[in-house]
Every structure is written in C-alpha cells, then in structure tokens.
C-alpha cells in the first residue's frame, strides 16, 4: 500500500508539473495565479500522502488543514490587487 501511495504521490508530482507550467509560462498574472492555486490544492493531498507514507498521518493532517485554510488568502490578496489597480499587461517569461 505504501508503494502505491508513493506512486500516487509521484503521479501527483507529475501533474504538478502541468500546473507549474501554467504558473511559469503565464501569460498573464492571473494565469499564474490559477496555476499556483492548482499547485496548492495538490500540495494538500501530497502532504497527506506523505503522512501515509511515513505512517504518521496524524502528524501531517494539521499541516494539510492549515494549508486548506490559508491557501486562498494569497489568491484573494492577489486578485484584490486587480480590483484596485487597473491594467494587466501581458508579458512572456524568460526574456
């Protein structure tokens, strides 16, 4: 079962690459925000999975819970920025 969790975790990590792709490539800040949000949600699950792999999930659940509670604050703050500051210039990464 542990091995299974390990592979599930690896797969999640693999999926995280896609979200990270979006976060890195953009093109707008909001896209990055979406990507980051997706990474955050996967992180919650991964944390629990790691707990299961360590077989100490009771120690990890608090972290995951904290994550679930706090994850959206940054997103709210960033979107709040757009509420108050107009303009959204597009830019391509790595120049």
């Amino acid at each position, binding site marked *: 079962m542990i091995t299974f969790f390990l592979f599930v975790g690896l797969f999640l990590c693999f999926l995280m690459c896609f979200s990270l792709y979006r976060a890195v490539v953009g093109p707008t800040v909001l896209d990055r925000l979406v990507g980051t949000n997706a990474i955050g949600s996967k992180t919650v699950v991964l944390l629990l999975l790691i707990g299961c792999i360590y077989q100490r999930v009771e120690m990890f659940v*608090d972290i995951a819970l904290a994550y679930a509670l706090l994850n959206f604050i940054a997103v709210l703050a960033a979107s709040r920025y757009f509420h*108050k500051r107009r303009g959204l210039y597009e830019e391509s990464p790595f120049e």
Partner: protein
Amino acid sequence: MKRIGLIVVILCGAVLLYATRDFPAWGDPASPASTHVSPHYIEHALQETEVPNLVTAVLADYRSYDTMFETLVIFGAGVACFLLLRSFGARRREGWYVRHIPTGVVIHFRKRPRIPHSRFFERLDTEWVPHDLIIMTICRILLPFIQLFSLYVVAHGDFSPGGGFQGGVMFGASLVLMAISFDLRTALSRVGERILALLAFLGVVLYGGIGVLCMLLGGEFLDYSELAKILPVHAEEARALGMIGVEVGVGIAVTAVMAVIYVNIASAGRHDEGL
C-alpha cells in the same frame, strides 16, 4: 553587475561543491551530526520534559534562549515596520468617496460630507473598493475556524507539529484575511493598532517574564523546572507547562507583529483602506 554576479556565483558554487565531497552521505545515520549531540535530545527529551514533540522540546526548552531571541527578531521586525512606515499625517485627498452598501453606488463629494453613521454607508479612500458579498460571507465563516485552529496549533504544539510561531502566524493570517476580505479600516476597527502593540508587548513579556520568573525562583534563566516550586506538578511537567506558556507568548507576539507588518505595508503606513 551581471558578470560580477556570475563570477561570484560560480566561484561560490565551486567552493561549495568542493566541500561537499567530504560530506557524509545524505541520510547516513552514522554521520557526526546524528551521533554527537542530537541523540541526547532524542533519547532524553521525553524523559526530561515530558514533551513527545522533540522539536518543540528542543526549541522551547533546550534552546529556549535562541527562541526568545527569535521572538525578539519578530518583535523587532514589527517595531521596525511601524517605525519605518507609519505616518500619522493626513494624506491630501481629492474629495470624499462614500459607498451606499445596499445599492453599491459610490458617491463622490467635493467637500467633506456629513453622513449619518449607519451600516449602509461606508467611507472609501479610492474610487472603488470591492464589496464582494461572496468573499465576505465565506471569510466570515472561515475566520473563526482559522482562529480556533490556530489556538489548537499553539496548544497542541507539544504533541504534534505546530507551536507558538505557527499558530501565531495563522492567527495573524486570519487578521490579514479579515483585512483583505473587508478592508483594512474595518479590520483595524476590530483589532486596533494599540491592541496589536499591546499584544506584541504582552507576548514578549510573557516569554521574558517566564524566564525571569525562573531566575527569581532560584534557577538559571528560562529553567522551567523551577516553576515546580509554585505549580503543583513535578519538575518534568513543569518544564512542559513552561514550554506551553512560552509558546503562548510567542504566539501572541507573532500574531500581533504579523498584523502590524501587513497593516503597515499594505497601506504604506497610512492605515486607510489599504490593499
């Protein structure tokens, strides 16, 4: 600058790589780091302090002096942000904006308006401040949970990951969330600047006070086992209790300071509606 940076970086990297060759392998249980001092913590901490979370035990007892200064760093950061940014002078403003909440209409006054104090009107500083019912409602639901959970994290730090700092940051984050979902002025009207300062002060004084109390009771500074003289517990439990007390102090201070830093950065020290 770029080239200098690159040279420095490559030089540093090379030196570090050079040193890595002598390292014990990653995860080697027989490495000096794992065999010299740390076994004492692992094997004796539970016995000596009755705290199963070794990190908390080391943090708040064996190296409590460090942790006191860690709290102090945070405290100093709060004081520094206040000192740096806080401006008491009023900003020059072009007119007054007031929103009628039920309709969402923003009214622009040239001169200072005389508006009855009611919950239907809201003072604004800029043309538009989001007034999002969904976000406000959800946050209103979530806030107590976050705060409750952060208290749990502080209190349960002896048995599971967490402790004063983490709990404090979460509580601080809840205040930040309040400021983001409503606006800064609303949040500040709930938890004012004075209260935050008082909390920060209380937190560090709690930590330092416990330390000094131990000293007054005849032990060394921060030697919680001396608390057994005034608490009806034996020395090991006194250590655990002392740790909790200290963690609470850290939590209070961190909460306040996080809020102070956010408030000052988000409004550039003006304490208006902010971000």
